[in-house]
């Protein structure tokens, strides 16, 4: 074999090996296992801890409130609709109970008169006219809205 062919062949082999080595190094683990992405990313997306624990979790301690709510019109609403978890996802709700104040603004999120809410099964009120100068929870029990306190 002539010298020049040998050199050409050698440099070709060196470049190809270097290319393969760098390619191995740069492409992350599990890339291309399931498609054009890192398969490990699926587990990373799964790894987060849920904040919202679900009604069953709340009812395991607050069964009385759950029963009360189940008996009235708010029965279909999950606890965490109104009591969003104001906690670290890994801690328990006992550490810092998610308390809300039954202000008119809060109830108005669903019950304020709005042309987009008519006939959807949610009572619509002219809040200013209905409330007088009281908070909603002074008359209504938020868990059982038709248990009026008078």
């Amino acid at each position, binding site marked *: 074999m002539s010298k020049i062919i040998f050199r050409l062949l050698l440099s070709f082999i060196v470049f190809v090996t270097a290319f393969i080595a760098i390619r191995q190094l740069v492409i992350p683990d599990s890339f291309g296992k399931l498609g054009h992405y*890192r398969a490990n990313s*699926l587990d990373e997306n799964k790894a987060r801890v849920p*904040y919202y624990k679900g009604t069953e979790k709340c009812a395991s301690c607050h069964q009385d409130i759950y029963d009360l709510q189940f008996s009235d019109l708010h029965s279909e609403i999950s606890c*965490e*609709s109104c009591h969003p978890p104001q906690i670290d996802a890994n801690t328990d709700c006992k550490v810092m109970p998610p308390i809300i104040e039954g202000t008119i603004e809060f109830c108005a999120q669903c019950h304020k008169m*709005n*042309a987009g809410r008519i006939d*959807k099964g949610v009572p619509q009120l002219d809040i200013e006219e209905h409330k007088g100068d009281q908070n909603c929870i002074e008359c209504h029990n938020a868990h059982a809205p038709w248990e009026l306190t008078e």
Partner: protein
Amino acid sequence: MGTNRISNNRRKFFKASAALIGGTFAISIMKPLGLMAQTDSDDNTNEKDKFPLWGMGVDIEKCVGCGKCAEACKIENDVPKEPFYFRTWIEQYTVKNDGEVKIESPNGGIGGLNQSVPDEDIFKSFMVPKLCNHCTNAPCVQACPVGATYISPEGVVLVDDSYCIGCSYCIQACPYGARFMNPVTKAADKCTFCYHRISEGLQPACVEVCPTDARIFGDLRDKKSDLVKFLQENPTEILKPHLNTKSRVFYNGLSSEVR
């Protein structure tokens, strides 16, 4: 002597050509055989069918625009609280008597939507919750230059935020405006159907908190799921069907005004 050499070359040429044509012919016969061999790997696609295929139904006729879903989404997924980062949000469409359409979504609907148009001017009004549509032909996945956004085996469009280079091509490619650049992770961010929750058998946070059950989540392959029932009982439509994205978020009661 010269003529001899030429004829020798010619012989070589014919030999090489015959080998080439014969080889091509042989491979063309082999290919259908290979396809036959792939029928075995069709079992693998059947195995893929064993994964659920997640989708969502949105019932516009039930949505009251309370904003609980958008709020829950922000808490569940650590979305920045500023009013321009949303994985899901609610738009209030108001069609006025003169035909003008007004679309409002102050703070994504968090805290409840208020009607700003006086009642006498309103022809009709409705709420449209929006989120990532988890397209089968996702434009964002095609646009990503590094493979940092992809469709999971369950049909959920996800972002690999450690691999994302933050070029924002996917944000421009999304026809639904469902993506944003997360200022904390410096990566593209979007609705994942709460992938961490659905993998554990829970509902996505927005579905969990919806007080009127306007959002229905389920497995499109499970013929008994609530979502399949919803699709069977209601005339549903996807957003922007002309773009051939084949999205998996289905709307009931969708008006033509919705963009």
